[in-house]
């Protein structure tokens, strides 16, 4: 069978109803889809039977998905706006441990009677990295909004991995305490011809 079933492909070729689903594997998992109200549906072998995806279409922003599906970015940010600053602060402080959790994004189409035409087809898998919060200043009659974000990386691109700016012995020993690989780098500089050590 194809990864995307042929009936879904056929539906996508015409005007259709698209369901976009996100599963964040925290404990308990967060299941959100981008429509309105709840929908019972599963990702095979990821969700247990009877899982219900909550309708988050009024909260969650969509624009990052295009970047994500086309694979031109290795980290994307899911945002949620329309909450007041106090709620946002409470959410951030009470959020379950999210770093390193698997994140799945999948789609399926809905038929004329709003029923999903297949299981959720997982298109993208990432790893949750860190949360962000922003509440820009507004002027006049504009509504103040808070935007909460969850940065999600694909592959091994987590923000927690330190990068070395200098190949110094101190930095190398911070990562691997017994490694002496960089011990003699201080002797190396431009215009210096080091003598190959003879241990």
């Amino acid at each position: 069978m194809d990864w995307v079933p042929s009936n879904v492909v056929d539906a996508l070729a015409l005007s259709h109803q698209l369901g976009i689903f996100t599963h964040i594997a925290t404990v308990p998992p967060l299941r959100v889809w981008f429509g309105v109200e709840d929908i019972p549906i599963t990702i095979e072998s990821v969700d247990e039977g009877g899982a219900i995806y909550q309708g988050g279409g009024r909260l969650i922003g969509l624009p990052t998905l295009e970047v994500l599906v086309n694979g031109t970015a290795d980290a994307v940010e899911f945002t949620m706006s329309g909450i007041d600053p106090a709620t946002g602060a409470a959410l951030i402080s009470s959020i379950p441990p999210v770093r390193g959790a698997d994140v799945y994004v999948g789609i399926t189409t809905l038929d004329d009677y709003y029923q999903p035409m297949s299981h959720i087809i997982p298109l993208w898998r990432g790893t949750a990295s860190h949360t962000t919060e922003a509440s820009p200043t507004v002027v006049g009659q504009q509504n103040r909004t808070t935007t909460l974000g969850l940065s999600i990386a694909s592959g091994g691109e987590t923000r927690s991995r330190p990068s070395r700016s200098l190949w110094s012995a101190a930095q190398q020993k911070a990562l691997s305490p017994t490694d002496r690989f960089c011990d003699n780098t201080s002797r190396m500089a431009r215009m210096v011809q080091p003598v190959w050590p003879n241990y």
Partner: protein
Amino acid sequence: MALIGLPTVFIDFLAPEKVQVDPKGGAQEGGRPLVGEPAAADISGGGFLTASYDGCKITTEEQHEYVNLLGARLNFGFRNINVPIPTDWWGPFPKIGGIRAPYVTNIPHSDGSTFSDGAGYSQATVSGEVTSSAALRAGVITLTTTGMDRRLRHSDWFSIYHPTKGWRAYRYWEVISAPSGTNGSYTLAISPPLREAVTAGTRVEFARPRFVGRFPSDFTLPSITEAFFVTKQDIRFVEA
């Protein structure tokens, strides 16, 4: 916030000039194609209901008080209220005195007497009942009706009182099967899909369908006092 056990907006008392009820959703476009008309991709899965009561004529003291109550309760959009949809004039109700009547009023006690103030009981003229249970987000329901004056044929609003999601309004977009007479067992394809699973025997309400609503986040209802005490106000709701 609470979705059940809510009061209902007194729509008759507010006397709006125009009531608009419309499901809103989100459709994505992929940009303008060569032929100029892009394909539609709805991502909301049925959308959510919005309603607006336009030109509510506020004249009496009590109406001013009531508008003040609505503003006090609903401003900032975090408290809910049941929002009725006035279908009295074109719903499937029998005609009493030449006008379609969703309710029979002034029903006396069994001995023919009324309450001390002259009022009687009232009762909906049309009743419906779900005949087989349907799952969360089902798009097709079966129901049986009594008391209708005409068949369910094009589309009508109705509502169901769910145990946790409260009142939700639906309408049908396709009659899949219908009884031979006016009343009986119908199978209807509904829009939007069911907000909560229903069991057989759940009442389907055709008289004044209603849904749990709140104010949109960009809307507040001001308390207005105008010279000569006549003012008109628009009130907007979205499904909670």
